[in-house]
């Protein structure tokens, strides 16, 4: 069971003179009930990884399987949901309800069933279907549009939910709402969040994978990554600021029994010179 990439590779323009390898031998196992955070700098292969995991791109080497079957567009449909980076690019219908009902309708549900799924999904993302259902998707704020795009994916009740930079460009309120929403999905789905900001999901993630030039730079439990803050800079990333201060302190000779993301605890440790 699970969504499993086994040494998957993908190159754009494969076999042509200007072949660009984007993903090189990446192994990733996503189980329901888990949250995996994928970090990497621009061009590290994060978005390609999501497209391969969603079946939109086919790995040229290695394999991708979903719940024991090879991943194809067919087996991915309805089982893997992908939230792209730009929600505006995903919204298209006249009303929000039609927009969100589009996916379930395509899965073969009757229009009534599709509308019910859409209403449930809108409620789930905190957009009241009565107040919002008839509105144009293009009248929404940035944070609402992002949640609406996620509702469009949730309406198909995917077993695996993949989100590309789900909080980029959102303010504090919007980020908090999207974050809560994705964390809640972990209860029933395997969630993969791709981000360029370590700050956002590291504390809540079960697993962390750092991509570096298309390859796995580091992978393991997120809790272990927090205890090794040097892995971020080793792969061209910046550790969350609170962790980075402790790393600088450690370089300056301070000794901590453990690193923490919590600012309160960090402040006490820094002032006390350790715990």
């Amino acid at each position, binding site marked *: 069971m699970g969504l499993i990439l086994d040494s998957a590779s993908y190159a754009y323009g494969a076999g042509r003179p200007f072949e660009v390898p984007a993903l090189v031998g990446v192994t990733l196992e996503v189980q329901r009930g888990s949250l995996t955070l994928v970090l990497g700098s621009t061009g590290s292969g994060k978005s390609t990884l999501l497209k391969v995991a969603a079946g939109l791109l086919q790995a040229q080497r290695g394999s991708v399987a979903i719940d024991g079957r090879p991943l194809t567009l067919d087996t991915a449909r309805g089982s893997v949901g992908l939230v792209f980076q730009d929600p505006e690019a995903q919204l298209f219908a006249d009303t929000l309800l039609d927009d969100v009902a589009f996916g379930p309708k395509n899965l073969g549900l009757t229009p009534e069933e599709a509308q019910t799924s859409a209403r449930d999904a809108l409620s789930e993302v905190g957009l009241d279907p009565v107040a919002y259902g008839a509105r144009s998707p293009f009248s929404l704020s940035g944070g609402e549009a992002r949640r609406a795009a996620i509702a469009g994916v949730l309406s198909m009740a995917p077993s695996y939910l993949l989100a590309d930079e789900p909080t980029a460009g959102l303010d504090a309120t919007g980020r908090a709402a999207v974050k809560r929403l994705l964390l809640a999905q972990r209860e029933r789905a395997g969630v993969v969040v791709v981000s360029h900001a370590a700050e956002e999901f590291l504390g809540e993630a079960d697993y962390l994978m750092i991509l570096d030039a298309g390859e796995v730079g580091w992978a393991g439990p997120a809790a272990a990554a927090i205890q090794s803050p040097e892995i971020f800079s080793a792969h061209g990333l910046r550790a969350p*600021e609170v962790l980075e201060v402790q790393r600088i302190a450690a370089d300056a000779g301070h000794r901590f029994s453990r690193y923490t993301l919590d600012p309160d605890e960090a402040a006490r440790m820094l002032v006390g010179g350790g715990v």
Partner: protein
Amino acid sequence: MIQFQEVSFSYPGSPAGVRALVDVDLVISSGQMLAVLGANGSGKSTLARLTNGLLVPDAGRVLVDGMDTSDDSLGLPIRERVGMVFQHPDDQIVAPAVEDDVAFGPENLGMPRAEIRLRVDSAIADVGLTGLERREPHLLSGGQKQRLAIAGALAMNPRYLVLDEPTSMIDSQGKREVTEVLARLRASGHAVLLVTHDVAEAVRADRVAVIDAGRIVFQGTPEELLHRRTEFGAWGLEMPPGGVLAERLRALGRPIPVRAMDAESIGSSLWA
């Protein structure tokens, strides 16, 4: 200077009474960096677009060095003075190579080639992209792309540079690069208006204006802003984790400066 005098603005077609900006008074002075801080939908991007006549007020006036943006005949001189950089660098990169992209504006003004060359080289140097002149823009990192967009604006020799959330879509490395470029520009006498929802970015400016539901609800120094900390939530703002850490350290008696919200500044003030 750029002056907003009791400026109000509503988008066409918005329901009656819904105004994006309400009675905004604001001054952007030469050689200063002003941060306009606000949540999504607060009106801060609208404010940015009013600085150079992309939008004109329904009521009140916007004056750029005394020129009224609602006077159509002043459109060109106003836009030459006020350069603008948007959130998505990809939206404003047009050419197949870095230097061609930077040259796009001056070329359109019909400048002599030698003058264009000078401006392009100096703008590319200002943003630290020297050596990448022939690079294809799509091969640049997020931070490099945004610096390229800034270079494109600088090549027009603007007196004012207005940036609308220039770092919200790029990684933290890119953020630092853009922040450093902005600090250099301010040091070289440019007036910078930085629109952002990031408190850590805003406190690096000389002055901060907070905008909430179209109204300016605070104007002052970064130090004064932090005295209004309890209102952040109501304004839709959030203290970033680095800022929270700095607060906790201050509470424990460590003199962390107001602007220090990143690890290096906090570290250097802890072990100075």
